[in-house]
């Protein structure tokens, strides 16, 4: 079996499993005042320090959440609400058009409930937001902008954004900036302090930690109106009993990542480049999407013209090769990728994509299996053609 879907989720590191299982057997609510509570609290705070060290922020800036989606919701709604509370003129949010649904959907919600106007920032043909595009989206008078949100690395095509260059644009107007960095920490040296953002989303299960835990890194001067009330455990921004075992495992995973990243990025980039070369050898008409250079080291994203992405996924799955069409599903039906559409691709191309994403556990045999399975999948996928779907 070849697992080539590490961008969806990547297996937990043994170190993270060990840390988590050790704590699962222990009593203690980190909010309790007795000895067991203090032990649990100590584990959480040590984890917070590890997360802060790896992500280049202060421990007090780490707000643990149930994952990336919650962190993005807190950032989008909580910062926008808080900014408007301080200045009622701030009624606009500016968001890139290629964000993950965990950012897109709260943005649409804020728009549809008439809370905020939204300006969507276009991307170039690599899927990147340029400082110039952001500057144009802000417009002549950006005084009404409550928040800008641009992702650090695109989950579909893997293109990375220069967040520091983008915050240089917003800084002159004092506009709050959030970045969804869920895909980044395993592959990029993320340093919160140097980015110039006020909030950044990370998720544990994309870096070898468990599902159900993540964090919003929030600078100390950034005010956030909470979405959920009930205890205010995390800086009054996020309520709910802290999941100490998951948090400790998250930190253990980030610790592994920080130790191994330099080596793994070099190894996986070479493996990814080999994958790309071999895919072109069996599919000369394939189109490689995203920036060939400025992209995540583990991401290879293709359009296979004339083949429906979900046909290919099914055919590869039957041969034990697991990948993704890249785009989001609605009730199990892959939708044409909004990322490719925003990059200027046709709807047919946006439905003919596959994403292969590698992880720290990937090896040459995974690529070999893909290259063995791909020709027959492509032949049958072409034969089945392009059913119309929900055109």
């Amino acid at each position, binding site marked *: 079996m070849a697992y080539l879907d590490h961008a969806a989720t990547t297996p937990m590191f043994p170190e993270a499993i060990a840390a988590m299982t050790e704590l699962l057997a222990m009593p203690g609510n980190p909010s309790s005042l007795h000895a067991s509570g203090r032990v649990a609290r100590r584990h959480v705070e040590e984890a917070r320090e590890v997360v802060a060290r790896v992500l280049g922020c202060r421990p007090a800036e780490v707000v643990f959440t149930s994952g990336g989606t919650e962190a993005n919701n807190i950032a989008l709604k909580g910062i926008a609400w808080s900014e408007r509370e301080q200045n009622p003129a701030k009624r606009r949010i500016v968001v890139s058009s290629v964000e993950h649904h965990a950012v897109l959907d709260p943005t649409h919600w804020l728009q549809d409930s008439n809370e905020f106007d939204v300006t969507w920032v276009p991307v170039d043909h690599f899927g990147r937001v340029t400082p110039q595009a952001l500057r144009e989206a802000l417009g002549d008078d950006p005084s009404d902008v409550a928040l800008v949100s641009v992702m650090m690395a695109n989950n579909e095509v893997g293109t990375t954004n220069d967040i520091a260059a983008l915050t240089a644009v917003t800084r002159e107007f004092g506009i709050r900036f959030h970045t969804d960095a869920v895909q980044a920490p395993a592959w990029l040296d993320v340093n919160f302090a140097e980015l110039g953002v006020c909030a950044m989303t990370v998720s544990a299960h994309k870096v070898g930690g468990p599902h159900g835990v993540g964090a919003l890194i929030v600078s100390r001067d950034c005010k956030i109106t909470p979405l959920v009330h009930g205890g205010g455990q995390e800086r009054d921004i996020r309520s709910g009993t802290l999941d100490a075992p998951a948090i400790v495992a998250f930190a253990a995973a980030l610790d592994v990542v920080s130790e191994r990243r330099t080596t793994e990025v070099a190894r996986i980039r070479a493996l990814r480049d080999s994958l790309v070369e071999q895919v072109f050898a069996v599919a000369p008409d394939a189109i490689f999407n995203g920036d060939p250079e400025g992209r995540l080291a583990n991401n290879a994203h293709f359009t296979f013209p004339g083949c429906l992405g979900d046909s290919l996924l099914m055919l590869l799955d039957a041969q034990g090769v697991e990948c993704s069409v890249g785009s989001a599903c609605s*009730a199990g039906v892959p939708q044409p990728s909004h990322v490719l559409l925003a990059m200027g691709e046709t709807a047919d191309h946006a439905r003919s994509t596959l994403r292969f994403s590698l992880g720290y556990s990937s090896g040459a045999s995974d690529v070999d299996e893909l290259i063995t399975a791909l020709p027959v999948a492509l032949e049958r996928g072409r034969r089945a053609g392009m059913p119309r779907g*929900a055109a």
Partner: protein
Amino acid sequence: MRVLAALSGGVDSAVAAARAAEAGHDVTAVHLALSRNPQSHRTGARGCCTIEDSNDAFRAADMIGAPFYVWDMSAEFQEKVIEDFISEYSVGRTPNPCLRCNESIKFEAVLNRAIALGFDAVVTGHYAQIVHGNHGAELHRAVDPTKDQSYVLGVMTAEQIARSMFPLGNSTKVEVRAEAERRGILVAQKPDSHDICFIPDGDTAGWLARQIETTPGDVIDAETGNKVGTHKGAQAFTVGQRRGLALGNPTGDGERRYVVDVDVKANTVMIGPPTLLDVNVIEAVNPRWGGPLPVNGQDIEVQVRAHGESLPAVVELTNDGVIITLRDQLRGVASGQAAVMYEGTRVIGSATISRSRRSVTA
């Protein structure tokens, strides 16, 4: 064989797929997404099309051990089934959307895609039998007459029949439900679906009224030519219909009145006593044959509605279809429905009824 099982989320398709797997076939399961905006939960007696149904199908595939995918057929379904349904009604005919779905979606779009992707056949939970007889793969009635669905499968061509599997054709519904329980399929007691899947509340007339622009018109007594009432739009009426005429107290003789003709162009609905509905000649077009064509004058049996009887008749081939002469009079034949022709239990073919009349000699 590598087979593709279409799982609706109901009992029948789940048991059919389980039987195919048990028979040694390599089963892959798909749920067909037919609605563009699926509701999240079932309402009424429906067996497909909600997210809950899709989840039921996923769980059934788990129990069978089959990989599961959702195929988006909503654009094809909209065009070939829903729009056909509306356009047929708008010209005064009474279509059968289940038959059209089998003809254009399940055994056309899905089957073709499955074959292209390397599958050998499609498995469904329809109650009908495929018998390998004198004419190759033949489509026959199911053994359970109360569940027999050969009528809505009559549109299948010989090639389509040869690429299909109906593992339930030799069982009764009671047996299938018991087997689902035994296999631990969670939907074993899920109610049968009866309504048209894209009209969840079952109010076809109300649904059509929202799709077709209608204007009020006259209800006319076919015997006297007199206007006896008004209707909201001729398209919503079907020959043979009695309910919904709202004539108050139309007749002195107390005899029931039926719709005997619908003229959409003139926007009139003709009513009359049931004897005016008696016909013995049925003309049908666009035939589809499940094997060799019948010969002129061949004795056959014909069924003209989904749960109708099988009636002895004689068939003649025409340029664009068939003329079927019934041995006995039949009451109320609606244009747009299928005339499915049988030889014993074997389906010969199906054609769309364009006209029915009483022969002069009858």
